[in-house]
């Protein structure tokens, strides 16, 4: 018998009021400001923008504050907000070759035009806790300066392209598929896969990439180039009839150079994996380029070894942490009626089994 029940409203209101109190924490400690989160928890803000798929540092900082630092909850808030925004336009593709670079390194070429620029990196730190940071009000640290030589910083892959040693990526101006407008359907082309991966969960994409390094769909990746910096975003303005730069975004781009034996149709040459992520998101962009390359097995005539990172359906249908957490966490919500049915069924089966046993005896 189905019985509808109501109730819990007072409990829910009180739970949310307590949540607000817990979020604020000890009132004797100053409240966090959005500017503090934006300015001092920058990499968390970047992750929320990348996986929330909306570039707006103030909103990402607000989401982190509201979510008490739970980044997936913050990403959920951003995803919910973005659905309320009208889509005004699609930008022209950003030119990462013209990026204003804060960091640019190559693991394949030591001497390259523009040089190896480390930027503000955790690399080569000793990963020892810095207890000096526990003392507040210490002096403001400042980095060194050196004369900058403005000049082009060509992509590393463009040198290899010249010798035909690496596959090319010929430009096109097709309108890419958009999984925020049309349901994600398989098989997906590379554009759609990159959209899904760049907003995918960092931990999931990292693990998928790591699995390829450990042998599950091996792709032998080198980081040809990793660059972090800002690019201008240009949009065709319909009322003007020409394109205008409407702002700037910080991006992390990774290009991998991968081994390739060649096939009946292709000469032996290097192949490429690509990662491009909002903000300073180095781990994610490297992982993205490994997973991108791994998913290209069919196009490049490689064998499917059954590795999870080669399985488009597995990767694309499980990389979104909002879909994942929505389905996972809903099982904690009331399922009293479903469970009642299961209970009835188990009781009946047990009774039948017992009756059969007694009859046999």
């Amino acid at each position: 018998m189905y019985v509808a029940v109501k109730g819990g409203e007072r409990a829910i209101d009180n739970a949310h009021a307590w949540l607000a109190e817990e979020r604020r924490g000890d009132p004797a400690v100053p409240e966090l400001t959005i500017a503090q989160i934006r300015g001092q928890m920058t990499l968390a803000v970047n992750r929320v923008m990348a996986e929330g798929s909306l570039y707006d540092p103030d909103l990402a900082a607000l989401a982190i504050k509201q979510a008490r630092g739970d980044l997936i909850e913050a990403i959920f808030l951003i995803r919910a907000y973005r659905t309320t925004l009208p889509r005004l336009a699609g930008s022209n593709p950003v030119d990462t070759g013209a990026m204003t670079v804060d960091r640019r390194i190559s693991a394949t070429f030591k001497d390259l035009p523009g040089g190896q620029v480390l930027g503000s990196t955790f690399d080569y730190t000793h990963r020892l806790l810095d207890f000096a940071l526990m003392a507040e009000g210490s002096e403001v640290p400042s980095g060194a300066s050196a004369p900058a030589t403005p000049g082009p910083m060509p992509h590393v892959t463009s040198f290899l392209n010249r010798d035909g040693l690496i596959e090319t990526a010929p430009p096109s101006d097709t309108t890419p598929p958009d999984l925020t407008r049309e349901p994600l359907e398989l098989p997906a082309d590379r554009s759609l896969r990159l959209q899904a991966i760049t907003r995918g969960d960092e931990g999931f994409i990292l693990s998928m990439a790591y699995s390829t390094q450990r042998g599950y769909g091996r792709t032998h990746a080198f980081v040809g180039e990793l660059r972090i910096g800002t690019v201008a975003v240009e949009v065709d303005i319909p009322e003007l009839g020409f394109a205008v730069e409407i702002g700037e975004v910080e991006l992390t781009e990774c290009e991998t150079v991968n081994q390739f034996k060649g096939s009946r149709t292709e000469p032996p040459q290097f192949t490429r994996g690509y990662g491009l992520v909002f903000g300073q998101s180095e781990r994610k962009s490297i992982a993205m380029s490994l997973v991108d390359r791994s998913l290209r097995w069919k196009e490049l005539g490689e064998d499917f070894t059954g590795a999870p990172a080669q399985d488009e359906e597995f990767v694309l249908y499980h990389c979104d942490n909002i879909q994942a957490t929505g389905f996972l966490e809903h099982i904690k919500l009331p399922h009293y009626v479903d469970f009642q049915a299961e209970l009835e069924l188990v009781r009946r089966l047990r009774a039948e089994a017992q009756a059969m046993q007694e009859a046999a005896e």
Partner: protein
Amino acid sequence: MTDASPIARKDWMAVLAKAAPARLAALMPDLPPHTTLRNPETGAVMVRGRVSATGAPFNLGEMTVTRCSVRLEDGAVGHAWVQGRDKAHARRAAIVDALMQTGAAAAMRAHIIAPLAGEAAAARSQRAERAAATKVDFFTMVRGEDQ
């Protein structure tokens, strides 16, 4: 109408779009009389990249953008598309865009566009100098057989 070639207009619109809203407001505290052709509206622009930097476009993610259109009393029409959600920023940028097409262009350029562009360039070069200080100078170690 002066100084409204598309190239010049692209440049000043870009400067206005990238300006910090508070800075633009400080440079232009008072707004001239105008009618609003399109109320400031916040929405999203889908930012696109290219596969392997040069190939087919793909959708990277959205950014918040606010747009606004105004008409001045002399009939000049200004448009703005600016990053973020600041409606006052979009309105101000649209008004400056309109004024840049009138006799006030030289004054606007001197008092608003040039300072904003200069500050942006200074911030950019300061960051480039920080980055330049982290450029690696490789040197070859003295090897045993050289000694």
